[in-house]
Structure formats: structure tokens, C-alpha cells
């Protein structure tokens, strides 16, 4: 499979704090890649760099085999092929339907086509009856499912999920994971990167997993090896639920 995302020696500093140190890895098209690690390890920083929301202090990023720099003119075009869902569901102060249609509206779709796609998506989400409700009045689970659908509605080739099911009840977690599985099933070339604390979720969903600790990639391995026979003692400890500090 061709590479969808490639980081080459990427580091990120915020003032004097090193959030990410010399990270290099490749995620192939069609892969569901997990990034796990303790809080503050640098997981979200990787996603923000891949989504071109932040520029690395050092190193380079390739998306679909091409170098791309955050804040460049091309970055906007590249970002349009990527969808991202944040841990905290963030909805715009407008209706559920308009939130869903926002991603399509900014891509210049015509109103009839937007209405058609949004209608279908609302029915699938079970939110058709609340289409005119201000999205801020939804429950946490509904809001997060809406955020996922909004990020995926334009068929991005890369989907970045940052703790996308944290703080949700098991039913909503299952619903969201189903949405992700459905997204992947639609096109085997789609790439998903999941940042999670939840080892069970990583095991359920990811084909390959990286452990990041203190800004450094400790180990990257296939799911089976990562959970059953990791090379690094810190991976074994983290997977086993032990403290690695």
C-alpha cells in the first residue's frame, strides 16, 4: 500500500517545552493506525501537525507522498482531504443540519446536493427529528456523533480521531466505533489515525499501534505484536496497565 502520511524526523517545541522529539513513521493507505500513550506524551501534537494546524519545529511531513508545510497555500487544499475529530465535541452555534452541512458548504457544494447528503446522514444518525435544533442543545454523545459525521461527510481520504470517544458512555462509544468501521468499509484506501488512552479501543480498532512517551515514539508494532510480545519494556508495562513513569 502507498503511504498516506509520513513524518520525517518531526519535532515540536512550545517555548522550551519539547512536545515531540524526532518522530518518524509512515501510515499506509487503508491502515487504521493507533497512537497510545499517557496524557501529555505528545499524541495530540502529532495529529495537529498531520492536520497542518501546527508546523513542526523540525522535520518534514508528507501527505499522499508530497511534502506539505502548515500555513502554506497548499496546506488549505491538503487539509480539505483530511477530517479531524477532537476529544471535546465542538459544535458551531447553529442547527444540527447546518453543522453537518458546514463541511460541504465550505467546499462549494450546491445547496440541493448539501440538503440531500445532510438528510441522508441525519437519518443514519437518528437525528432527523432534531435537524433544526441548535447543536449546542444536543447531549454529549449526540454532539460527538454529529462531530464525527461532520468530519467524515465530505469523504476525506484521511481521518484523524483525537480521543474521539473519551468521556462517553459505552453505548455511545459503540455507536461511534460503528461509525468509524462504516467509514473504513466504504473505501479500503481510507486511512484512519486514532489517538486513544483506551487500550481496549486500540485493540478493537487499530491494525498497527505506536506507543508515545514523553514526546518520543517508543515502539510501533502490528496489533498482535504490540499487545502480546512488544519489544520495549515500557510498551509491555503500558499495555499491562502498569505505571511507566
Amino acid at each position, binding site marked *: 500500500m502507498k503511504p498516506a502520511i509520513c513524518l520525517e524526523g518531526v519535532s515540536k517545541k512550545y517555548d522550551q517545552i519539547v512536545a515531540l522529539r524526532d518522530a518518524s513513521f509512515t501510515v499506509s493507505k487503508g491502515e487504521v493506525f493507533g497512537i497510545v500513550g499517557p496524557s501529555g506524551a505528545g499524541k495530540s501534537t502529532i495529529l495537529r501537525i498531520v492536520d497542518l494546524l501546527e508546523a513542526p519545529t523540525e522535520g518534514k511531513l508528507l501527505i499522499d507522498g508530497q511534502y506539505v508545510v502548515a500555513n502554506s497555500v497548499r496546506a*488549505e487544499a491538503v487539509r*480539505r482531504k483530511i477530517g479531524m475529530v477532537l476529544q471535546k465535541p465542538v459544535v458551531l452555534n447553529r*442547527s444540527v443540519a447546518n453543522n453537518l452541512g458546514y463541511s460541504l458548504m465550505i467546499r462549494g457544494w450546491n445547496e440541493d446536493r448539501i440538503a440531500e447528503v445532510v438528510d441522508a446522514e441525519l437519518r443514519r444518525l437518528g437525528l432527523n427529528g432534531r435537524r433544526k435544533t441548535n447543536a449546542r442543545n444536543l447531549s454529549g454523545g449526540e454532539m460527538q456523533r454529529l462531530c464525527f459525521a461532520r468530519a467524515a461527510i465530505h469523504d476525506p481520504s484521511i481521518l484523524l480521531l483525537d480521543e474521539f470517544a473519551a468521556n462517553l458512555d459505552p453505548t455511545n462509544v459503540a455507536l461511534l466505533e460503528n461509525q468509524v468501521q462504516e467509514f473504513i468499509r466504504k473505501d479500503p484506501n481510507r486511512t484512519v489515525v486514532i489517538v486513544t488512552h483506551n487500550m481496549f479501543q486500540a485493540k478493537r480498532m487499530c491494525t498497527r499501534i505506536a506507543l508515545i512517551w514523553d514526546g518520543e515514539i517508543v515502539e510501533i508494532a502490528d496489533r498482535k505484536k504490540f499487545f502480546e510480545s512488544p519489544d520495549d519494556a515500557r510498551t509491555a508495562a503500558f499495555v499491562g496497565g502498569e505505571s511507566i513513569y
Partner: protein
Amino acid sequence: MISTGSELLDVTLLSLYVSGMATILGSAIGIPLGALIGLKEFGGKGAVKTLTYTLYGFPPVLSGLVVYYVFSRAGPLGDLGILFTPTAMIIAETFLVIPLVTGITITSVVEVDRSIKDTVKALGASSSQSIVTVMREAWVGLVMACMIGFGRVIAEVGAAYLVGGNIDGETRVLTTAIMLETRMGHFEWAMSLGIVLLSVALMVFLFLRLLQEREML
């Protein structure tokens, strides 16, 4: 002196027209300007913000003086012949609205949560689409900016008097009429005009409040 209901109506309508147009023009300039200053990074941004906030205290009479000079016969735009017309009053008052609307817009867009700004960008919005979306999220603050801008000009007298001249039937507005009535010793009538002025402001603010509380759909 205002002696008939029809004269009072004319003065009230002219007040609304001049203040309303100044608010619309000042907001049309101040809102995009404030959004750009608030959301874009550039050198000297702090100084520009400080200057904007300083201009909150821009004296109406000074704005009137500048407009008077520019449109007076000896001024660079004297040939236009708009001194002592409602147009000159609108221009002078627009300069009073711009800093207020710009400054409040800066504060309003800056205070939109960073997660909203990141989300909009992450969803694929271009730079200009991001600014428009953030402005929409700051809707309550932007309407407040217009309200404060309108409040400043409906109540000001210095600029309106200087460039309007308080000409009966042409440039007399409620504030200049109040001043005239007071000078003539008609205190009760001046007070009544003050109540009319407050009532007009109340109606406009009620309308803007409704606009502000409108559910975003």
C-alpha cells in the same frame, strides 16, 4: 423652535436616519477591520489595538472639526458642497462609530474559543471562511458593537452641530434641537425632546436585542 408634531417627527426621523446610517457605515468598516485585527497575526498588532481603544475617546467635536475642514470651501473636498447637510453629519459620526465597533469586534472574535477556531480550520475552511465563521460565532458581541456605536452617535451633539449647523428643517436633529431649546430657556420642551430621544434609542435597542438573541439556525 419645534412647534408642531410634524416638525418633531421630521427631526426625530432625521436623527434616526443620520445615526442609523453612521452606525451602518461605521459597522460595515469596523466589523471586518476588527475581525482582521483580532484574527490575523501581524507586526505592530498590539500598537494597532491600543490605538483603536484610545480612539474610543475620540471627541465628537474633533471629528466634526476634521470633517468641517475637509468639506469647507477652503478644504480639499469643498467643491462637493456637502457641508451643512445630513451627509456631512453622517460622515462625521461614522468616524465616531468606527473605533468603537472595531475595538468591540476585536474583543468579540478573540474571545471565541480556540477549539472553535481549530475545528473550523480542521474542517477545511479557508482563511477567509474561517474569519467569517468566527465572526458568526461572535454574533452577540458584534450586535453589541453596533448597539454601542448607535448609542454613541444618537446622543452626540458636537459633530452634528459643527458640520450640520442645526438648520431648521434641514439638519436639525434631536440633540441639536435640545441644545437650542435649552439656550432659548424652553427647559420643559428640551426635556420632552430628551424623552423622545430616549424613546427612539429604546426602540432601536429593543430591535437590536431581538436580533442579538435570535437563535442561530
